[in-house]
């Protein structure tokens, strides 16, 4: 008899011929994250088990599993030989603190000599005998004692089923470049795409001295928070100062944000392609600010040559985004009020419905290719 942690897969179950690929990726991702602990990760019949760990580390291991996409649920359990007497003996030691309970036996091993229903009844009776002030409730019990009798000649007994993050294992759905601003939305956008199995890298546009070193440190901090979910990645920090100054000097102020975003997209696509990343990801959200109207997004999208642009938060309310940000731990950092590169040159009346023609006309006042080339020469790459 020993302690184990049962790990159940999420929707990768639904995969057909590629199931092995998804399963292996999830296995590798878990293995990497728990590599600091002395334990065994075992694959067995469409589940993973962590075994031979120090019980003191169980809580920490479960916490880590709670940050890995592709896991449906987690249960700390007792692994015991599939033997009526051994299981009954163990059940008799349980001290159940709640008022009501039920026992659910799942007999995957059809050779086990007693039916699930009958064994449940017997075990329930043992619990009743050994715990005072407790009664059986089959419909909505406070505690369910699960007894999982597997084909492996071993059974698993547990009562906790902890929800995992769901989604797909990171690394099974390609890779993308996230525009990470330092606000509330973009870290959440990165998290959402990683949840669908995408490997994330990020780009940040820095405008020193209009924004301070603290603003950059804030973005690095945010990147480190989402790293917990996405795994290690590269953060490309691009100096945007010259570009902003040039737009400000030469172009109509109402187009400031639109032109900035068109240039940011161009730079992002170049960096993505150069690093074999397959898409651009933004935290844009329809109607939140002037640069997030469908017209604005049309003109920013128009500069992208090949890659798709994913906006996982497009239909979310700000409240919903904030809730996810709080859950993943980025909210408190995101709301630190350092200047970000969009606020410093914010025009009083930004254009809400820009047209591509007008943008092109404004851009003729700039040497765009040179500005972009210069920015690309001066990239700081930070390993997160």
């Amino acid at each position, binding site marked *: 008899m020993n302690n184990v942690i049962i790990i159940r897969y999420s929707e990768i179950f639904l995969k057909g011929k590629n199931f092995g690929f998804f399963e292996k990726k999830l296995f590798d991702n878990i293995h990497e994250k728990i590599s600091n602990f002395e334990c065994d990760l075992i694959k067995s019949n469409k589940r993973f088990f962590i075994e031979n760990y120090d019980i003191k580390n169980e809580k920490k291991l479960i916490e880590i599993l709670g940050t890995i996409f592709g896991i449906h649920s987690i249960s700390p359990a007792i692994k015991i030989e599939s033997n009526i007497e051994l299981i009954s003996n163990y059940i008799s030691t349980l001290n159940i603190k709640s008022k009501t309970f039920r026992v659910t036996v799942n007999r995957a091993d059809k050779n086990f000599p007693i039916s699930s229903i009958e064994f449940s009844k017997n075990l329930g009776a043992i619990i009743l005998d050994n715990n005072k002030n407790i009664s059986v409730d089959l419909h909505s019990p406070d505690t369910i004692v699960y007894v999982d009798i597997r084909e492996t000649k071993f059974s698993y007994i547990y009562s906790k089923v902890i929800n995992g993050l769901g989604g797909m294992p990171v690394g099974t759905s390609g890779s993308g470049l996230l525009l990470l601003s330092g606000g509330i939305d973009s870290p959440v956008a990165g998290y959402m795409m990683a949840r669908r199995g995408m490997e994330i890298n990020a780009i940040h546009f820095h405008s*020193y*001295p*209009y*924004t*301070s*070193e603290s603003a950059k440190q804030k973005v690095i901090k945010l990147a480190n928070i989402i790293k917990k979910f996405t795994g290690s990645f590269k953060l490309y920090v691009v100096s945007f100062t010259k570009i902003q*100054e040039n737009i*400000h*000097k030469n172009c109509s*102020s109402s187009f400031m944000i639109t032109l900035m975003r068109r240039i940011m997209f161009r730079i992002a696509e170049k960096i993505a392609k150069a690093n074999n990343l397959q898409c651009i990801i933004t935290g844009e959200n329809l109607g939140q600010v002037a640069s997030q109207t469908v017209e604005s997004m049309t003109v920013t999208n128009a500069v992208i040559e090949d890659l798709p642009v994913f906006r996982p938060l497009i239909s979310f309310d700000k409240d919903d985004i904030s809730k996810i940000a709080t859950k993943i731990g980025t909210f408190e950092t995101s709301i*630190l*009020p*350092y*200047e970000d590169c969009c606020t*410093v*040159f914010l025009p009083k009346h930004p254009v809400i419905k820009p047209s591509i023609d007008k943008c092109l006309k404004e851009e003729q006042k700039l040497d765009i290719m040179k500005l972009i080339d210069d920015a690309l020469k001066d990239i700081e790459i930070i390993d997160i």
Partner: protein
Amino acid sequence: MFFDNASTTKVDDTIIQNLKKINDEFFYNPSALYSEGLKTKIFLEKMRKDILKNLNAEDYELIFTGSATEANNLAVFGTLKKNIRKILVSIGEHPSIYNTVCEIKNQGFQVEFIKLNNDGSVDIDDFKNKMTSDVGLISIMHVCNENGAINNIEEIVNIAKSINEKVIIHCDGVQAVGKINVNLDNLNVDMYTISAHKIHGFKGVGALIFNKKIKLKPIIYGGGQENNIRSGTENVYGIYSLYKAVDIAVNNLQINYNHVMNLKNHFIEKLENTGISFKLHSGNNCSPYIMSISFLGCRAETLLNLLSDENIFVGNGSACSSKKSGNRILEAQGIPMSEIESNLRISFSKYNTIEEVGYLIESISKCVNDYLLKIKKHF
């Protein structure tokens, strides 16, 4: 070049040089019963007495704390009683008082804030209006950390005590001690907070000086040090730095004051000659050590970064609160938002020189002009 001395200061060389000796002789635990522990205790008591003497506070008690923030918290929570009906606090207080009274307000106490004048000092008329016989605790700072305004504490104490002689009056003297004349006997306050690192001592040490009649309740429990009011082994090195810093500052007060006043006058005179558009938010009755100044049309954070590139370090509002947007104190002074957004705090110490101020002016002139040129629209 460091012009953010209201946030902290460089430790005095004398203190650093004497540390070895202090460590050799007085590293012992002052609570220990053997002779060396007792010697350390005697040394500690001598330092306590000398600090009080230097502030003309020989009839007062002094409790060493881990910071002035802790001393301010002790002043509020240590005297808080259920029967205190009303607490009066200036709206211009440091966050260590302001946020503390906001917390007790949440706990159900009635807290009223006193308005500020345009120069940042407490509005005495507003104080008179709000000072009623049911006010049990007052906290008003001696010198404002944002703009250097000096409050007339003696007048405030007279008004308050004439209405309720039992009212407890606390004064945060962190930016006053060692910079302007502090005579606690004359001020007649019940509690007074001081800090080491604002006057070339160490960070992590402060003290609350208080009237012997005040019965302070501890906010930290443990081994019963500091007369059972502030448990925790006494930080002898930090306390030495506070004692020595007070001693040096008080005994050189006039020389340093004249020197800093000279720096400030020189700064303003030279700045006027540059033709740069600026507005000074520190009035006539203020400490020359702190200047609150807006460089019109420049965003403070950007200007701070540009100056930092020139190796000049200035403050952006209060360093303790620079992470919070807006600025409560400048707003209370009635300063328009455009001037708050362009506000820097330039604060001097005895170590700054006329040459440094010359370079400061040169750099401000260069940075402001470059900045304005870059953000200017050409059409």
